[in-house]
């Protein structure tokens, strides 16, 4: 896929919505299109986190392994979701496993290059940070609700 097409695809993704054109161009330069088959492992816990993914089609399970319980899905991320932000936070290592649940198309972005770009251009960095912070906030809220285990025992 040419960078021009990638730029268009990125522009349509909610994560990059209304991002200025020059920034999209920058992003497209470090983006590539990747396909994962159903069941395929995308990354594993504690691996270096160089890439992050925006999901175009399909579904990804974020998993962890618990002794005596085996692998557990913590959440699934579907179309238009974003997978992975460990590329942004030292020590840049994966915290979970990720596996394609079904045939999944993603755009993979080179996190290392993005970090460099963010350092060089703080306006771009800030714009990207705001968007990642928004995703983190959504995940945090979801995790809080999950922790409350609201369906347990009685209606709460």
């Amino acid at each position: 896929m040419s960078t021009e097409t990638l730029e268009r695809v990125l522009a349509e993704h909610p994560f990059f919505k209304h991002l200025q054109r020059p920034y999209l161009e920058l992003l497209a330069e470090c983006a590539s299109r990747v396909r994962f088959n159903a069941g395929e492992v995308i990354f594993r816990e504690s691996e270096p986190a160089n890439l992050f993914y925006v999901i175009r089609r399909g579904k990804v399970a974020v998993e962890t392994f618990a002794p005596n319980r085996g692998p557990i899905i913590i959440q699934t991320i579907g179309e238009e979701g974003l997978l992975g932000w460990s590329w942004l936070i030292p020590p840049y290592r994966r915290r979970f496993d990720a596996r394609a649940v079904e045939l999944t198309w993603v755009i993979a972005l080179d996190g290392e290059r993005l970090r460099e770009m963010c350092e060089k251009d703080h306006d771009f960095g800030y714009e990207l940070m705001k968007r990642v912070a928004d995703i983190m906030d959504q995940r945090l809220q979801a995790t809080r609700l999950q922790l409350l285990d609201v369906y347990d025992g009685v209606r709460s």
Partner: protein
Amino acid sequence: MAGLPDPMVPSPLRVQRVRRETYDTFTLELEPANGADGFSFAAGQFNMLYAFGVGEVPISISGDPTKPQTLVHTVRSVGAVTQAICKLKRGDVLGVRGPFGSHWPVEEAAGGDVVIVAGGIGLAPLRPVIYYLLSNREKYGRLALVYGARTLQDLLYNPELEKWRGHFDLAVEVTVDTAAASYRGNVGVVTTLIPRVQFDPLQTAVMVCGPEVMMRFTLRELEARGIGPENIFMSMERNMKCAVGFCGHCQFGPTFICKDGPVFRYDQIQAFFAKREV
């Protein structure tokens, strides 16, 4: 309710069928033990079910409002009374008074999109809405059901969920809070599904029922999607006793859940919904 004249006196109903939904939740189909007529009700209303010698509890009607011959309730066993009800077998008799309370605005929602958000047993009072919408499909725009439960084993109405999923004009999104790696469906809390649903925020009625915390999180998500509080309806299922506004047990701010609710329009309870003390 036709055939149940005095709202304070339970009428006897006989269990015709019991369906085990999950390990702790059962659906009962009831018919009058004394040959009385069927039960008209509006989607969202509830009855007081009396397990003889044990006690009485409010339970939503979970059946089809267009089929009033049979009264249907889905009950989760959480304490003495619900446990007694869940143990009933075909032929056993239960005391029923009702129907009580306000209903979901299914008619008012005609001409727009409808989104149903259910958590856990909260799907029970919303099932009559789904029946109604599907039998009047042409009156509505987009229809979506967003349903969350704790685990796969807690999902209610599995055969029907499958059937509804097969409807090309009803979007069904189901999620569970946690699952083993072999599960191929959605995992995550119910609020994570809301951004996926397509609707016109200005022309949409959203009907929500579930644990109160889940409803609070859902409200925030709906707000983020541009839905106004006047278009959000929620069923408040705090506990009650008399069901007719006498005893004050279910007072909720300036309202009584039993007679002003259980279904409220969010802007009418917004001021005191999130308050801890009400």
